[in-house]
Structures are given as C-alpha cells and as structure tokens.
C-alpha cells in the first residue's frame, strides 16, 4: 500500500448557476496578461454544447488522454516517444480557431475622437495583431445554448442518440441545459505529466497538485495534446505552457482556490483524499464498465486502522489525516456515492467529481398547447429532460444505471426533506424511496445539510500545508523569515 494524499474537489452541478464568477476570479489573478489572454484555467460550459476549446471532448480529433493497452495504458496521441515524432508538427494540437483570437476595442476613440459628423464608437481589434477584426468565436460562445444549431446540436455526448432523439431535445417539451464548470482535474494518472519530454510537469507530493515548472518548460506542447480536458495552455508570449495551479499560494495559506472562494452558487467543495498509488495502473487500465467502481476503490478510508498505520509509514501528517476525515469530498464521493468524475474513459483518474444535475420534468405538446403535469410532486427522475444516456456519456463512460441511481438518491433526499418539513408527502413514501436508494434518514439529512446549509469552513477542508517543513528542506525557516520578499522578480523568458 503506497498511500498518498490528494486535494480533491466536488462540484454540485444541480446548484451551478452558470454565472462564470469562478472563471473571472481565476482570470483576474492568474491569466490577465499578454500571452495568457485566451487561457481560461477555470471555465464554465453550457451543456449541451461543444465547450472550450471547441469540441475538446472529441478525442478522435484531439487524441488526448490514455487508451487501454493490454493490462496497462498508453497515451492516445502524445506519448513521449510517439510525441517526439510529432514534436515539430503536432497535428493533434488545437489551433487558434479551436480557441479564439483574443480581442479588445479601440476604447480610446471615445475620449480622443475629434469632432466629426457621427458618433464615435470603439471598434474591436485583435489583441494579437492589433488589426480590426470581427470576433467570430470566444471562450464561451455557446453560452446558454447560444448558436444551438452550430454548437449544442453537435455535442459529442449525443453520439449514441438517434437523430430523432437528438432533435426532440431542442423542442420546448424536452429542451434543457445545465452548466459544467471545469478546472484542471489534478489527475492521479495525469497524461500531461507523462507526455512532457522535459520532465517539467510534476505532481506535488504533499497535495497532488499538478504543476508546470515555468523554468523547465521547453514549449514542446505535448502536454496540451495529452490533456484530454484541454486544460493546459501554451503562453505564446513567454513560450511556456501554463495551467490551473489550484491556487497553491492560497491553499498553502489555508485559503481555498479563488474559483471556489468566489462560487456564489456555493456548488464547490474541496478536501483531501487518501489513495493507494500501487493501484493506479491497474485502475487506469480496467474495462470501461469498471472504471467508476475501480477509481472509487482507489480511495482509502481515513478511519480504517490499516490505512492509518500505512499513512503514518508514508509520512502523512496527522493534520492531513484529520482533514481527510472531515473531507466533504470523501462524503460525496465515497460515503454517499453521488458524485462522479468527468469522462472517466479518458483514464486519467481525475480528482474532480460532479454531483449530477436534476432537471425539469419532461412536458408534452398537443395542438400547440404545452402540458407539464406529473403524477407526483416531482415526477420520476427518468422523466427528466436530458436523457440518462447523455449524462452517462459525460460522467460514467456510458453506464446509465450509475446515473439513474444517483438521481434517485438526490430525489429521495428531497422527498425525505419534504416529508419532514411539510408532511404532505407521507413518511412511508419517503422511507420507501430512501430504502430503495439504500439510505438512512441520517444519511439523507447529512446530504441535505452539506448541500444546502454548509458554511465556508465545512465546504472547504484544507489540510495544513506545513510550509515551514518544506522550506526547511532548502534553508532554515528562520532565515526565510528574515529574507523572504527581498530580491528581483524574474519573468520567465522563452527558451530558458
């Protein structure tokens, strides 16, 4: 047993508003500079839709992630050796058109224009060339089903739906959307780390955060190809790749990442998970149908005496163990089993899990009259507008049973709470729903409390970073105390 600790996250999609505050919190701090304009370490996508960069999920195009090869896995498009062959002509790399050409406006015109015969306006200009341009795409072009004929209707996750089924999803009676916020998954089996020819990408031992060393990066960009989530970006100004750093300067000081801090939907949770690194290869290379179960089996119970014993041997701090026992991620993912990783079939073992969205009940149309009645207060989850198959393609490598069970659990919690708070749903009905989802009333209450009532400190349980110990490996911590901050800031430069 090789126990490691990993900061992991849960995003509760039923609560996501799609406001993008997270994206901007991140951007303001980290990517608001030349060369990074188009980087959205955190972005929010409307589903159905094609996301950012466009169609990123389609690995037939981008060849990201791992594929099963016998009892192991290999990088789909950007293995170190395979990668070397394509170093100078990487056809799988997304190009500017998959992202967008960043732009600004000639705002100065408003203040500076000489008197003329018409009103001045600020025209858009390219941030790359400085020339006039008409923006044709952006990081969120299909927001709220905008441009649905081009984007939503071409969502890759409709792959096993018939044309009739697909079309029905764009009629009033079935139409729906939800939001999918995405950051780097800080994977347990990160393809970007495996693909880097320079060894510039690493996973931090203490928290599992995946980082790109801005001094070592040599601009090979194989990480960009390898990441199936397209969460590594190439900075065209510095010539280095960059990605979400999970706000480690904040994590290290006990503050949550900016995107999570700023989440006004209160959908985000963060905590530490223990896992057994010995099982990574086996887990990543199992059959598709076992992916979810096996990934969940990787995580170790911090209350288990054997785990505690081995954690001590692995040098995991007591404070980390304590945090692991309070981890909201552990509760959602392991204890309650209501959160799933995004596209487990990419086999990177992501550390970000999603609680599924409940959606409005399906309606029907007759003679132009819209009917949305249901047999019960909330209807059955199977009558939700987006088909299980679609959600399964996103979150469970196609397994609709897992999806249905989670949705039923979430609904059972609602029925239980309705019964408890109003009584117009009978106790018997609520109990039978809980039972069929294998939940006690205590569990249902706990799910409800963490979903609805949790305060900041309950949603985010950050293990202490013990920076003093890390610093001590380089110099006396006292010396750092005396010296830190003095010196000249060096900017990363091309080719260093």
């Amino acid at each position: 047993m090789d126990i490691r600790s990993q900061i992991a996250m849960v995003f509760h999609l039923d609560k996501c508003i799609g406001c993008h505050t997270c994206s901007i919190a991140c951007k303001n701090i980290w990517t608001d500079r030349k060369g990074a304009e188009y980087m959205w370490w955190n972005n929010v996508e409307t589903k159905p839709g094609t996301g950012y960069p466009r169609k990123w999920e389609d690995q037939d195009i981008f060849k990201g992630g791992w594929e099963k090869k016998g009892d192991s896995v290999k990088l789909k498009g950007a293995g170190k050796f395979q990668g070397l062959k394509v170093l100078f002509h990487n056809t799988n790399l997304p190009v500017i058109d998959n992202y967008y050409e960043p732009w600004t406006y000639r705002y100065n015109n408003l203040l500076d224009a000489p008197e003329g015969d018409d009103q001045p306006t600020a025209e858009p200009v390219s941030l790359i060339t400085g020339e006039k341009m008409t923006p044709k795409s952006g990081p969120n072009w299909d927001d709220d089903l905008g441009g649905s004929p081009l984007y939503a209707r071409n969502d890759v996750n409709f792959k096993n739906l018939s044309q009739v089924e697909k079309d029905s999803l764009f009629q009033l009676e079935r139409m729906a959307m939800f939001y999918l916020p995405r950051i780097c998954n800080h994977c347990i089996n990160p393809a970007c780390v495996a693909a880097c020819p320079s060894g510039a990408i690493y996973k931090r031992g203490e928290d599992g955060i995946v980082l790109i060393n801005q001094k070592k990066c040599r601009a090979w960009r194989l990480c960009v190809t390898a990441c199936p989530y397209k969460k590594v970006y190439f900075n065209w100004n510095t010539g280095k790749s960059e990605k979400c750093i999970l706000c480690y300067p904040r994590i290290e000081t006990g503050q949550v990442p900016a995107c999570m801090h700023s989440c006004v939907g209160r959908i985000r949770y963060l905590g530490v998970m223990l896992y057994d690194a010995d099982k990574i290869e086996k887990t990543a290379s199992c059959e598709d149908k076992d992916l979810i179960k096996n990934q969940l089996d990787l995580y170790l119970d911090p209350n288990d005496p054997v785990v505690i014993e081995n954690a001590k041997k692995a040098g995991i701090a007591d404070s980390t163990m304590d945090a692991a026992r309070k981890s909201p991620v552990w509760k959602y993912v392991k204890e309650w089993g209501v959160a799933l990783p995004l596209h487990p079939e990419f086999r990177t073992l992501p550390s970000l899990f999603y609680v599924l969205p409940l959606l409005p009940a399906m309606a029907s149309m007759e003679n132009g009259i819209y009917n949305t009645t249901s047999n019960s207060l909330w209807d059955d989850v199977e009558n939700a507008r987006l088909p299980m198959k679609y959600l399964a393609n996103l979150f469970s490598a196609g397994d609709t049973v897992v999806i249905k069970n989670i949705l039923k659990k979430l609904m059972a919690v609602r029925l239980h709470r309705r019964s408890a708070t109003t009584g117009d749903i009978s106790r018997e009905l609520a109990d039978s729903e809980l039972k069929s989802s294998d939940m006690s009333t205590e569990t249902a209450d706990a799910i409800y409390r963490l979903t609805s009532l949790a305060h900041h400190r309950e949603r985010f349980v950050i293990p202490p970073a013990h920076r003093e110990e890390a610093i001590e490996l380089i110099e006396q911590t006292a010396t750092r105390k005396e010296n830190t901050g003095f010196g000249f800031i060096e900017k990363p430069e091309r080719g260093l």
Partner: protein
Amino acid sequence: MSWIKDMISPKTRQWEEFYRNRWQHDKVVRSTHGVNCTGGCSWNIHVKDGIVVWEMQALDYPLLENSLPPYEPRGCQRGISFSWYLYSPVRVKYPMIRGALLDLFNDEKTKTGDALLAWQNLQNDPEKRKRYQKARGKGGFRRIKWDEALEIIGAANIYTAKKYGPDRVFGFSPIPAMSMMSFAAGSRFLQLFGGVHLSFYDWYCDLPNSFPEIWGEQTDVAESADWYNAKFIAVMGANLGMTRTPDVHFFSEARHNGTKTVVFSPDFSMVSKFADQWVPVHAGQDGAFWMAVTHVILKEAHVNKQVPYFIEYTKKYTDAPYLVEIAVEDDHYVPARLLRANILEKYSGIENGDWKFLNLDEDTGDFICPSGSSGHRWQEKKGDWNLKYTDSETGSGYNPVLSLIDRKDEILQVEFTEFAQDRKSKRGVPVKHVQTKTGKIACTTIYDLIMGQYGIDRNLGGDYPSSYDDASTAYTPAWQEIYTGISSATVLQFAREWYTTAEVTKGKCMVIIGAGVNHWYHSNLIYRAATMSLMLTGCIGVNGGGMNHYVGQEKLAPFDSWGSIMSGKDWNIPARFQQSPIWHYIHSDQWRYDGNQADYNTVPKNDFSSHHSADMIVKAVRNGWMPFFPQYDKNNFTIATEAREAGAKDDKGIQDYVIDQLKSGALKYSVTNPDEELNFPRVWFIWRGNALLSSAKGHEYFMKHYLGTHHNEIADEVAKEFVKEIEWKEKAPEGKMDLVVDLNFRMDTSALYSDIVLPAASWYEKADLNTTDMHSFIHPLSPAIPPVWESKSDWEIFREIARVTSEVAKKHLPGPILDIVNSPINHDTKGEISQPSIKDWFTGECDPVPGKSMHNIVTVERDYTLIYEKFISLGPNVRKGLGAHGISFPCEDFYDRLLQDKDHVTHIGNETFPSIKEDTEAINAVLLLSSVTNGILSGRAFTDAEKNAGVDLSKIKPLNNDISINFNDLQAQPRRLLNSPLWSGLMTNGRAYSAFTLNIEHLIPWRTLTGRQHFYLDHEGYIQFGEHLPTYKPSPRPELYGDLRKTIAEGKARLLNVLTPHGKWHIHSTYGDTLRMLTLSRGMEPCWLSEKDAEELEIKDNDWVEVFNDNGNYCTRACVSSRIPPGICIIYHAPERTYSVPKSSRNGNKRAGSHNSLTRVHLKPNLMVGGYGQFTFGMNYWGPVGVNRDTFALIKKLDNVTF
C-alpha cells in the same frame, strides 16, 4: 511526522515563487459596487503597489438562524470584473468638455469678462446654441481644469434660476440605496437650490404599481434567505441565475430541503434549469394563468372545501369582508364604491367618516365600522389604527361576515366584464339592503364580488363557466389556454399543489417576480392576478411566503435620517420631486407621437377613460395627483414678487394670488405648453446613471428634442387631433437643454453625449453606504485607494458645485428671494384622505383648496449665497424629529451629540451645526440618526407605532437599546439592520426578513384605505378604467400601439416582440463595456432569435442583423438559439452605443442606436390618480411607469457592415 518526499527536489520547486509572488498583496479594504443590481455584496478589494489589482468576495456576514444557509459568498461575474474600470481606457480621468461649447463660451467670456454674462450671450444666440448642440455625441472632447468646468456650471445654474426659475434645473440619479450618499450629494444640492430631482423607480419600470394598489407600499419583499423558508416557489419574469446571481443559491438549496419550484418563462432561461416544472407561458400572458389558478383556488379551497386557515386569513387581513354598494348603471347592476361608515345614521357624525368603512357582524348582524382605516390613521384620536376585529366607534369586538350568501336579503344579477373577449356576464351576487341617511341601497361583500368576477358558481344564478373545460368563459383553466399556450391540466396541478402546500405550511408559498413581468403595459394587473392567489391562501406576511418583487435596489433602509439629508429637508420643506415617466413623456415630446391610449389600452368607454395621456397628465397636475416641473410659464421668483406687490402678505395670500392668476389664465401651468421656450428644462445633471441611454425609453426622442443632435427616429406626430388641454405647436423644438453635465468614472453613452463630463471617483475610491432588499445588512463603500487622477467623490463634486454656485450668486443673485413650490398631495400624509371623489377645481366642480382639491403651494425663502454653507451643515429641522412611512421619532439629543464634537461642526453666522462637509461625516450622521442603525431611535420609532395603532410592540423592540453602528463598524464587518417599524418585516433573533410579518403578527394596518390588503380598488378612476376588480387585459396590439406606422417590411423581414430583460454580462449598461464581459459573451450585445425565425429570415448564427421600427434602430449580430421561442427576440438590457455599434443601413447611414431606440413611452392613465388612500403620490411610489415590453420591431439581415 515528516514531509512527504517531493516528486522532484525542493530545489527545483523553488520556481513556485513565480505564482506566489503574484498572489502577494499589500492591503485589503472592504467596499462594494454602487450599481443598480440589488446585490449589495461585500467585497474585499486587494491593493498591491498602490493600485487595485483584484477583488474577492467577503465571507464574514453575521449568520442568521441556524436553519438557514449563510449569505457567503455574495458577488457575481460582473462585480468581480469591476477593477478593470479603474485604469481602463474608458476611465474619465479629468474634467472634459465639448470643444465646440468651450470655444464659444471662451469667446463670450473674453468679451464680457464674466462667466454668467458669457453664458447668457451664448444662450441668447440661437446659431451658437445650435452649433454646440449639434456637436453633442460626435467627439471633440477636450480636457479642462476643474475650475473652468465649475465656473461654467455655476454660471449656468444662476443664469437659469434668475431668468426662468430654479425649477428649470434638473438632476437625475437613480436608486439611492446602492450608494446613498453619492445620490444624496446631488439631490441635496438641487433641493437647496430649488431645483428638481427626477424619479427613477417608476421610470425604470421597476415600481410594481400593484404594491401601492394592494398594500399602499412602494415595495416590500423578503430578503433572499427567506426563499429558503418557502415550500413552493413560483418564479415569473425573474431570471434568478442571471439577475439575482448572489441569491439564487437559496433557491437551489431550498429544492434540496423539499421545496417545489415552478418557473414561468417564455424562453428556457438560466433559472429554468432549477425548475421542477418549466412553464413556457407566452410572453406577457402570466396574468391569464394566475386568473385561472385563483379560479381553481376559490372553487376548491374556498367553496367546495372551506380551508379554515384561508378563510380566517382572508377575513382578518384583507378587504374581503368590506361592503360595496351595488349600483344601477343603465339597465344593469354593477359594483360601485365601498360603503362609507357615515352613510349610516349611527356613524354619521364620526371624524373622517368618508374614510371609514363597513363590515357586517356575523354574530349580531349589525353593521360595524372596523378600526384600522385611513380615516382612523389620520383622525385626532390615536390608537384606533389597527387590525383588531373591533368597532372603532364602540370598542366592541365582532366577527366579520365574509360572504352574504347565508344572510342575503336578495340576489342581484351583477354585470362582470371579461376584457379579452369583451364578454359581459351577469352573475348572482347576494346583497343586503342598507338603510342610509339618503335612502336604501344594496351592498355586498368584496368576497362575494370576487366570486362573481372569477365566475365561481355558488347556485346564485347567472352566467358561469360550465366547467374547468369551458374555454369561452373567464377565468377557467381552459380559458387561459388561449392566451398562455399552457394546458389546463398544468393549471390544475399547479393550483392544487399550491393550495395544498399553503394549507399544510400555513402560507409558505412564494412568488418571485421581476422585470420580465413588471415591464408590460398591464403589469399591475398581472401582479394583482398572482397576488390574489397568495392572499386567498394566506401567503402574505408569512416567512417563506410573499409576493417578492426584485427589480431595482429600491430599499433604502435608513430612509428616516438619510431622507432628510438627501432632500435638504433639514433646511427647506418641501422638496421638488418630479415623477419622471410623465416628465419625459411631455418634455421629450413623446406625447406628440402618441395616439390616444384608449385605442391600445383596453378600457370601458366613458369620458374619464377616453383622455389622451397628455390631457390626463394636465388634470393630474392641477388636481395635485402628480407633480410637474417647471411649474409655471413664469419665473416663480417673479410670481412671488408680483403677488407681494399685489398685496399678498403671507403664504395664504400668495396661494390665493397664484390660484387667481391660474383661473384667469394670466398664469399657465408649464405642462399645458411644454414646447414653449419658457417651459423648457434647461440644465440637467446626470450622475450614477445612464439617463440618456439605458433608461431612456424613447432614446431617439431624447436625442432630438432634449439634445438637438442627430437621431434615428422616423415617426410621425399624431397627437394633435386628440389633445385638448395641451397647446399644440406646429413645430416641436429640438435641443431644449442648455447644458447637460454628467458625473462619471467611465465614458458611457450619457457621458459621450453630455456637454461636460466630470471625473467621478469609482466605488473603490470613496466612502458611501449600500443597502438592498435582498438581504438585511448594511455595507460601506470605502476608498481602497484615493480617487485616481483628478477624480472626486460625488459628495465632493456637488459640494464644489454648491460652492461655485454660491460664489456666482454673490454677484448675480444676492440676498434672500422668495420661491413658490408646488407639491402634489403626498402619501403618508393627511392628504391621503382629501379627495373622496374626482372633482376638478379648474373647471369649477369644486373650490380650489391647496393640499385638498389641488396641489400644495408653499412659499420658501432661498438665499443662493448660502447654498454651500447649508450643504455642508446638518440643518436645524432635524431637531424636530425624523421618520418615514408615517412613523416619526424625536432625535434632538442625538443631533446635540453631533454638535458636541467640535472637530466636526460648521458655523453659519453665529450658529453652529453638525458638519457634513466630508462624506464620512454625512455617513456617520445618517447612521447615528436612523432607527435601523441606532437602537434607542428604533425603540422610539416603535413607541410611535404603538401609539398610532394602540397595540403593544414591546416584544419586537430591540432587546439591547444601546446599539449604534458607525462607519468604522461597517468597514470591519457587515452589520445587520435593526428591527424598525419603518419596515414591515421582523428580524428578531436572526429571523429572515419577510414583508408584512409586522402587520400579520402585530396587527399593524397596511397604509391603504381600509388598512387591509386590497382585492378591490374602488377609486372612481379605477372603476372607469375597469380595474376595480382583478382582471385580465390583453397586451396592446402592435398596430394600435403605433410604433410601426411608417416602418415597412421590405424583403425578408419579420415582426417580432422585442424583449429586453436584464442580461448576464452587465448590470444595465455597467460592466457591459468591460473587456472581460465582452470576451465571455459575444463581443457585443447580440439579438437572440429562435431557430425557426432565423431560418425563415435566412439568418445564421453570428450574422449581422438590423432591428427597427418607427422609433429607431439597433444593429447587432444574431445569436440563434433553440431556447428562444418563435415570435420574440431578446436584446438584453442595456447595450451601450459606445462599442461595436456599426452604421445603420437606414436613416442616412448614421451610427445605429440601442435597445431604447426601439421604445417610446406609453402611460397608463389610471395610475395617475391621487389624493385617495394608497392612490396618493410619493416619489418613486406612485404614478405611471415607463413600460417597454410591448415593443415590436422588424428584424432583417444587415448585409453591408460599416463602422
């Protein structure tokens, strides 16, 4: 324990300082955003290297009850983008002026050597005036010094006051709650000057007229935490994810606690994803759905089964048991006025007997005069204004009869009108005969009338729907299908779940409603329709219930103390407040383009309902219902002087003189001749708002008639044949405004078109206060950094304007001078009981009595040389006490406490006053003197409420009196407001604020005629407009509305309803121009189109399109989406003209306009009535609203795009 071995050596990991260095910062300061978003979020502003680098939400809100989710974090994608503005290329760094104006002014200044004379010469030369007016909005700005800009402004102010009167100087700044001191700065200056402040809540169409109609309340709603207490939530016209971004979590969290959610929205909006059921009701037709819901509730929960909670609630808290006369009209019976108590012999001599009403006692069968009516509120004897079931005249208890069905003398067949199909039905109403002083009359209860109106068959005979499936008769579930497109089965399920939930939870059903409904022409009726379902199931005044309207950050919590500073009431009474919708309708000449409202409004035919809106305004102004400025076609100073010369010795003498002059025609109301040069508005200050664009309904008419610059309007004038009271000039003036001054931190459209732009400090650079109705905290705005470049806070700018204005006055307008101020009859004053019927003194129907049959006429002495001194000093009127909403309390001791601080006083002559020279001084004065931030004053306010109502409120007075919150406290942590009877929600022990819980639990009446919640509105005007009972009226048809008289569909063009709801990437126009929001959206504000309409128009996603009608045009790109239904398009409110707007292919290839280029003002005249209970003017409280949802336009592809 030991450090886990790194995957690579710690030495290699030293590079990690790269990102750590970025995160490090020097200072964090709490502030918020002074924008009209209703958010009121607390933010931490991060400062590094002396500049603001980013902002993050504060998390330290005090917790409410444990059973409620916390408020953290609050703040949205827009707020977190604000720091961009500080150093952006649109930042206004220095005072700017249009070069054309500066050159002309300087020429005259050189000639005359005097700024005022220079301004005078410039204004008296039509060519020169036209020269700089034509240049408005067309570039040519120049940087000038503060002193130069102030000199021109001071000269224009005094010149205008001297030549025309101070009521030609106007100010517009919206929604004070978002940065209340900045608002107060300008309004205080204006009121000390005698200028006019324009209203905003009604102009923005954010005022829900149904609130004053039903509750006598501007707006009072639950804080968002209370959504979590609801067990059934219906959302309509509000896109919570989009517009209530920091609050919507309470909604999603309630779902997980077992709350059912239903969302009404024609498009699949952001909040629709949270719906258990999404109901795509046809745009603007929500009212029909709710009429049918109420039909089902009445039938099933009031008649078939009489749910005790509903019956008891309806009896006790609504006007349902009140008696109404059944009158004969032509050959049939109709519901008429409420029975007045003094028609009975036994009550004939009582005080205010016209304003007290009648119930019937269940036990004795006697007629009873229930306590709590407006007559009780304004009578000499205090203590009878309450909701106890007592006869106010005898003091004895009783049990009101809700329906006469079991004690009727007779059944009369009363006529009810259904307007959509214009169908009249006679239905049996049980009546009792009353022997009055003048004879016998028939009466019934409002409850019985409601049963008749909704077509509930109780075996009383008449024409009823045969069943729920009867589509031909209102208001069945089948009937509503015609208008809503939603099945009757949906209505039935909804109604049943609604009343079942309300029954088991005792009222925890909630409506959340917003601009998507409030902006329709008949919004008051739609709101009333939904509110009926709430009231009939006991859901108002209950935590988790309520009609929760969130449109505009209207709740200014410390209104008591702030109101005095804002209005200059600490020095002068009264202030000049203008109802904006009627003002813009008249002054921007939109009335000239308007046909008769009776042609598009659905009204019964009678004399009163057939007026053109402009004529109705004249009537409303004369009768004291609505204000209008300028007042007269003569300078008020001159009138006062002439009155004195004619022998007037006192106020009464001046009043008599003015009335005589008006009667003789020697003096005319400006409103009757608005296109006469004497009556123009002249100087316009705009701050904290985008008056020329975002809110400028009829934007192109503003361009033409206010500014005199280019415009895109093509409409014809049509009013000539309709108007009788208003003088028609063959040629409408263009360019009425002499000077437009904009205070701004960014170059928005209003700044772009103004003559002078003054650099205002932004929200991270000044001290201010912020409150909202979305939560119950009070927040500071704080200077994280000092104002950048040459900018100044609004407080300082208006202080400077006051200073230069006083300076100019020393030479040109020295010494005291008399001004005459007209003010309408005001809400929460005795004026509420002044006009029991509509009588026009002007036509001799009654005597002119100021404050009773007509507006007030008050004489005010002004000294223009002292404006500055008064501006910076808190005036002595505060000693007399403060208050609002009819509550008042003494505060002399606290005023004196301010005087004791010798570092913070001012001197005028020998007298000493508390200083409010600095913004923080003014803020601390507001906090010390308000009942929501000072526990002792809260206690005193409750004592006043107890005295008025005769009830014991000791349980809800603040437990700890000795609380006083100051500005530093707010900077340390958000503070929750105190309970105060100024507001109707109770907040004891962390309880979430829900409106009217004070009324329900402590029997405090609503500020209405009866003191109850009103189903029935018996004002004569309402009866004549057919709105006395809740009803459904169809939206005005585009061909009758008159926006498309000239516009012709050529080629592939299509007529669509243009909806302009609040958007995702801006708060009105703010933030919309930031690069961040433009990047995350589509680089501009697109026009959202359905897939079907787009296909038929051969428009592809991202193609350029032109949207146009008679009022103007808008050019943008299409966003084609399946979530938009055919027949509508959405242009989210409010795109600026400042970025990415190409030239229009129409109207001479000029720059295209904006969303408001498609609108023109249409007013609903019955909303102008006054002097009658809750139908009495209050600024932003009562009056017609600037509706815009009923706008239609053509859309077509734009092939040639040029900039």
